[in-house]
């Protein structure tokens, strides 16, 4: 069997059972004990009385005997019969009934009965002698009479029997009185004990009931406070709230409801909902839906309505309604009401509309933009295909022409053919660079974590053929992992590092440092520093332009697209690019990427060049 859970309900039951047991112990048990005691006392007291009666009868018997004897003796002595003295027959006739009574009274005691029987025999013998003495006296035979009187006293002495009977009955009386006294005493104790126990029980019942009453008072006060708090909350809510009965009559509203529908005083009388808000609540569908809420508990969820509020503004509201039990007493049966809340979403609607308009604008712009992009795409596609073919033909056929005329032409002719061919090749590589630049600007951008150290190491390994036989001191700091497009960032490092290698080619010992510069904003500043030719800072503004070169092509080859590509990639990542340089001392190219490095990350401070 499983024990029931220890709930308050269970505790209450246990308490009732305990109380019942206590009542039984303190009231019923003493009652039974006292009742029993009282019965015993009654009986004991009856026995005491009985003993007293036996004694009394016995004494009466003896008196009768003595009197009888006296009448005989008085006769004998010729004592004149005084007035009022009983005669022999009268006294003698009293004896037998008394015997009978005594015998009856001592029925309960065999011993006493035996003694009384013996006494009866003696008394009978004596009475017989007295009778004979009386006859003798009547016959004036005084001697015989005297003899018989003597014989009666000698033969039938009754004193011994009488004293035995009396002593026995006295003993009985004593014992019975003692028993009665004992019973009286114990009964007094039992009553006192019962009284004490009952007083204790009463006190504890009073204590418990007082405690429960105090608890109930506290709980009631708490409930009152809670109700008051909820009322204040409901009243101070800015959402209009109303409670309706099943017939859509307003039972209660909060302040916001009153303000919204122009009835600032709380509605006390039961107004119909339609009377509020100048027709805002009319309309058969809403009506039916609200009635359904009350009748079937079907919730009304975000029902949108256009309302004119008290300040005359057209508002969009969402109406929510649910069934709510109004009756305090569940036993009184169902008494459902409707809790109605109104949410003003006018501002939200307005914003939503604005957002939608903006979105439409944006979509149009995106459309235009992608149109432009498509055109750009097809432009670069056609450049890629159509512009290069003629260049290839110019280069190809000038080469073939050179081979064809061979030694027939002079050096000058060959030189001209060489210039044509070189120019075509150069134009081809310019187109190639431009196409790449354009591609970096429009190709899809895929963000992923990129380990910059790994990328730098890769790029240097890839450029190994360019640095064969060169003495380069590489100083590469610990670089962070950034979020970016790996292929594009590879392009950045490739351009910057190959530039550094290129512009230090005239140094005996090239020093190339790759590191991080301190930053106060939420960006990571990378730099590549070399001790190469550098440039005049006056032209620094041109450095990142397309096909902008600060050196002669004869000194350092290149088209001047590299840094333009770097700037484009970094811009697309949301970063910045700039350069610091000094002619013949070296160049430092900086670029930033959005993000921060953890404080524990080792950052090598760049030293001034």
């Amino acid at each position, binding site marked *: 069997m499983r024990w029931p859970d220890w709930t308050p309900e269970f505790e209450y039951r246990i308490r009732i059972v305990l109380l019942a047991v206590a009542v039984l112990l303190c009231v019923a048990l003493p009652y039974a004990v006292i009742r029993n005691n009282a019965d015993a006392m009654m009986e004991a007291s009856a026995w005491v009385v009985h003993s007293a009666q036996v004694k009394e009868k016995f004494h009466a018997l003896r008196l009768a005997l003595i009197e009888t004897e006296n009448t005989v003796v008085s006769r004998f002595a010729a004592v004149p019969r005084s007035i009022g003295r009983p005669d022999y027959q009268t006294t003698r006739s009293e004896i037998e009934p008394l015997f009978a009574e005594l015998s009856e009274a001592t029925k309960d005691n065999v011993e006493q009965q035996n003694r009384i029987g013996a006494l009866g025999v003696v008394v009978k013998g004596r009475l017989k002698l007295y009778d004979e003495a009386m006859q003798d006296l009547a016959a004036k035979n005084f001697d015989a009479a005297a003899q018989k009187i003597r014989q009666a006293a000698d033969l039938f002495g009754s004193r011994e029997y009488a004293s035995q009977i009396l002593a026995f009955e006295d003993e009985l009386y004593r014992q019975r009185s003692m028993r009665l006294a004992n019973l009286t005493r114990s009964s007094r104790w039992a009553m006192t004990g019962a009284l004490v126990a009952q007083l204790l029980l009463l006190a504890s019942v009073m204590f418990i009931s007082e405690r429960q009453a105090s608890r109930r008072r506290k709980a009631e006060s708490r409930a009152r406070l809670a109700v008051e708090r909820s009322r204040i909350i409901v009243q101070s809510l800015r959402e209009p709230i109303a409670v309706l009965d099943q017939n859509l009559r307003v039972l209660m509203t909060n302040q916001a409801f009153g303000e919204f529908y122009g009835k600032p005083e709380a509605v006390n009388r039961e107004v119909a909902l339609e009377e509020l808000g100048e027709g805002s609540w009319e309309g058969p569908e809403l009506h039916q839906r609200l009635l359904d809420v009350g009748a079937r508990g079907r919730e009304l969820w975000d029902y949108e309505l256009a309302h004119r509020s008290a300040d005359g503004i057209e508002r969009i509201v969402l109406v929510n309604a649910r069934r709510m039990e109004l009756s305090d007493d569940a036993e009184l049966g169902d008494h459902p009401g409707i809790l109605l809340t109104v949410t003003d979403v006018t501002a939200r609607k307005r914003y939503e509309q604005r957002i939608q308009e903006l979105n439409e604008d944006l979509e149009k712009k995106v459309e235009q933009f992608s149109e432009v992009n498509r055109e750009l795409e097809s432009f670069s596609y056609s450049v890629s295909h159509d512009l290069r*073919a003629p260049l*290839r033909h110019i280069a190809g056929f000038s080469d073939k022409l050179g081979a064809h005329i061979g030694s027939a032409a002079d050096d000058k002719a060959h030189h001209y053919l060489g210039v044509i061919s070189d120019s075509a090749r150069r134009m081809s590589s310019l187109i190639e660079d431009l196409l790449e630049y354009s591609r970096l600007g429009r*190709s899809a951008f895929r963000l992923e974590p990129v380990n910059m150290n790994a990328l730098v190491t890769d790029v240097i390994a890839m450029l190994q053929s360019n640095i064969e036989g060169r003495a380069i001191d590489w100083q590469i700091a610990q670089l962070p992992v950034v979020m970016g497009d790996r292929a594009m960032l590879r392009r950045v490092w490739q351009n910057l590092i190959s530039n550094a290698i290129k512009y230090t080619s005239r140094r005996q010992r090239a020093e190339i440092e790759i590191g991080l510069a301190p930053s106060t904003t939420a960006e990571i500043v990378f730099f590549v520093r070399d001790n190469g030719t550098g440039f005049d800072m006056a032209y620094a503004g041109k450095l990142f332009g397309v096909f902008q070169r600060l050196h002669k092509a004869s000194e350092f080859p290149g088209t001047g697209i590299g840094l333009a590509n770097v700037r484009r990639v970094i811009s697309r990542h949301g970063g910045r690019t700039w350069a610091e340089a000094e002619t013949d001392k070296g160049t430092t190219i900086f670029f930033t990427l959005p993000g921060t490095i953890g404080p524990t990350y080792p950052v090598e401070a760049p030293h001034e060049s």
Partner: protein
Amino acid sequence: MNREIRTILLAEDSAADAEMAMDALREAKLANPVVHVEDGVEALDYLLCRGSFSGRGKGNPAVVLLDIKMPRLDGLEVLKQMRSAEHLKRVPVVILSSSREESDLVHSWNLGVNAYVVKPVDVSQFFSAVQTLGQFWAVLNEFPQE
């Protein structure tokens, strides 16, 4: 092994490119005849033995050298139709293009091209590229019996 001589089909709209390619193949001294067509439609006509090529002998070319940008039907469309025709599915196709546009590369490989070569600007490089292609596909490469 009795091996039939397959043709090399060159689809190229630019006369200059075609001339250089033909010169290069001629210099490679291959036994395979070179057929030059000037656009995609002609290329398909040749491959499917129809139109002006309805009378040609049976057999697929050893390799199709295909330019992308051509009048009427471009190279990618020709490639697509070849790959969906049962008897042209396995014919080797090499795209020979001026451009290295990423979209072209992706498209070509998705359609199952066998090689994609960007025409070098330098004439000697151009020659050696075309000759290498001819040597590889017409001489080294083996086909299953049809």
